[in-house]
């Protein structure tokens, strides 16, 4: 019937934003690199996921199971596509680090996660249906990463990628520890510019003995004393702004994606990650990317920071669908032409904020 081609053409125009194929690498115990590749095609009555492993039907079965379980954490379901996942070499029977690579390739090919550049991932899980990543057996050494030119390296498990939602900074909905991430632009003069994440993990205070001073219960491992002090002051100021005085409720751990950097423009990202972790902020669909500092977090005010032009250029390169970008209000009039529209075309949204908090 004539309606069918029209329907296909119209849906094709929107679907064309999705990649036709995706690849994710993983390191094997013998040092070789395995590639998981995923492609999408019309389903036409076939299974939703098809896995092909040369000469190993059981591994293909296990891979299909892993991918299907990981899809349980997704809400949106599309019966129109079939994802075909292939693997270019067969790992040994006991090796399971390819699981994370398969799950990520499946997400990438359906546009649920759009990394920059090539990705290497090692991780396994016994609870894929909850989105957890339990651990990894092998480290991916830095020389392999640089030799293969893979800017994104993910290691499953605590300390790395512990939960699939963490890819966009969201806390694990089932865990007793609430961990949220936000990103901030690092300006290092041209090609060194990158996004760095800050992660805030909050644990409820269990006993009265712990509940002495919330500010002292903020740990920033791996950072010098000045940075620790800055983090503590920003967090306690911003928590004071909540207007909830009284007993301390949280023990807090703050980690940064890079150990070394200068400046205070991470503060806004830190404060918002803390608010998301404590369940007091609207949750963005993608990542939260923020740049801003303040001398008065207890009033919720956001002050301006430096590096407008390079940071805006970086944000236009890095923004992905669903991302929320927050900049100081003072930047509003100085933003480059077409910046807002450019971000919107990428599916991200921008706000120049004067203060934190709801509306």
């Amino acid at each position, binding site marked *: 019937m004539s309606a069918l081609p*029209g329907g296909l053409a119209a*849906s094709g125009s929107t679907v064309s934003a999705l990649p036709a194929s995706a690849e994710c690498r993983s390191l094997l115990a013998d040092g070789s690199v395995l590639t998981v590749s995923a492609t999408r095609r019309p389903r036409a009555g076939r299974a939703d996921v098809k896995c092909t492993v040369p000469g190993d039907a059981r591994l293909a079965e296990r891979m299909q199971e892993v991918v299907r379980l990981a899809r349980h954490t997704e809400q949106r379901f599309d019966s129109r596509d079939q994802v075909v996942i292939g693997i270019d070499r067969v790992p040994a029977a006991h090796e399971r680090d390819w699981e994370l690579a398969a799950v990520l390739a499946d997400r990438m090919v359906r546009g649920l996660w759009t990394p920059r550049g090539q990705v290497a991932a090692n991780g396994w899980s016994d609870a894929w249906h909850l989105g957890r990543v339990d651990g990894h057996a092998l480290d991916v050494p830095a020389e392999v990463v640089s030799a293969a030119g893979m800017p994104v390296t993910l290691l499953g498990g605590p300390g790395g990628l512990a939960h699939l939602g963490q890819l966009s900074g969201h806390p694990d909905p089932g865990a007793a520890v609430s961990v949220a991430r936000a990103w901030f632009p690092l300006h290092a003069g041209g090609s060194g510019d990158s996004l760095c994440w800050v992660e805030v993990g909050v644990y409820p205070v269990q006993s009265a003995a712990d509940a002495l001073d919330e500010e002292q219960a903020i740990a920033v491992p791996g950072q010098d004393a000045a940075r620790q002090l800055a983090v503590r002051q920003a967090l306690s100021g911003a928590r004071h702004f909540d207007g909830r005085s009284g007993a301390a409720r949280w023990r807090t751990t703050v980690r940064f994606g890079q150990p070394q950097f200068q400046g205070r423009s991470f503060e806004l990202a830190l404060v918002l990650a803390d608010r998301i972790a404590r369940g007091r902020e*609207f949750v963005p669909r993608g990542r939260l990317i923020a740049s801003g500092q303040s001398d008065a977090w207890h009033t919720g005010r956001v002050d301006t920071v430096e590096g407008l032009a390079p940071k805006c250029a970086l944000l236009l390169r890095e923004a992905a669908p669903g991302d929320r970008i927050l900049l100081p209000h003072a930047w509003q009039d100085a933003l480059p032409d077409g910046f807002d529209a450019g971000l919107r075309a990428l599916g991200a949204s921008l706000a120049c904020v004067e203060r934190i908090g709801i*509306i």
Partner: protein
Amino acid sequence: MLGLFKRATPVADACELGNSAVALPVRSGCTVPPSYPVVIVDARGSTRRAGAAAAKRMELRDGEAAYAFHPGPYTVDLLPFAGAPEIGLRTRFTIDAAEPHAAHQRFDLYLASEVAGRLGLDAFTAVMEGALQRELQDGGLDLPPCTSIEEWNAFRLGLNELLYMRCGVTVDDCVPVDLAGSRDYAAMLAARALRGDSEAPLLAPVAVPAAPACGVVEPAIADARALRRLFLELPCLMCGLRLAALPATPDQFRQQQALLQRLDLLSVGANAMPALGLAAPGQALGAAEQGRRAHHSRRATVSLDEAWALLARLKSATPASLAPLYDEAERIVANLEADCEGRRRTHAARGESEAA
């Protein structure tokens, strides 16, 4: 026993109406005060409102059910994000009097297709909250951190449409509130740690839309309710799609016609769905296969929820933004087709996951 003490029983717990209950079933012979509108659902599921006579005495025919509801206003706290329990939206809504222009009232359809017995305010809130959370997660509505006033206004418009299309309520007022006074996230996390059962996540994302509507575990009952929803709501969805999604180009017109045709076939198929427990006349079906069938019918109701949310988005769409919404409609219809097909089959398709 001998019928000596039979008399007209009043509406059960009538004082609840307007406080903790939105609608209560009314038995034949009851008298309902004139301030409470009454919806009568007949055996085929079509609805009508009882006449606005003073103090109605209900006379129901065979197979009919009647509900008296309180128009409100009700004030509830909706949680827009399951992961942010200390921030809520204080929403005041009413259930409007019958719109004379509309062929069917959305709230009446909701009562007919999804409610069995009493409709409590908490259950109704859970349905609205589920629809809101789902739409925020899918990107139909946007409520990002540090929402600007324009973004808030756009969200409010979308929320009004969503709750009207999904539940038939009119939102009067909606403001963000700090719920820290009543909900302590730290205590919730500590309880989660104590419970220690990481196997059961507190906020299962998949279960959110379906759970409140049918808090039943019995697959047969859940399946029957799901089929009832398909039977009653598919024609109304088709009607809504015809009206709301006015095509902007000839291609979209053809696309809309194709969608309507597929929905028509689905609707016919839903009316002729085989019984859950029978593989063939007189031949029983195994429990595992019954569970698979019930799973498909449950997932079809999730698609129905998505379709109502899509209609809400279509209402405020501009011609330029129609294309992705048509794509979304194709996805929903394709999912419905896949699930109805799965519900009809007597054995799992090749390569289909059993655990799902």
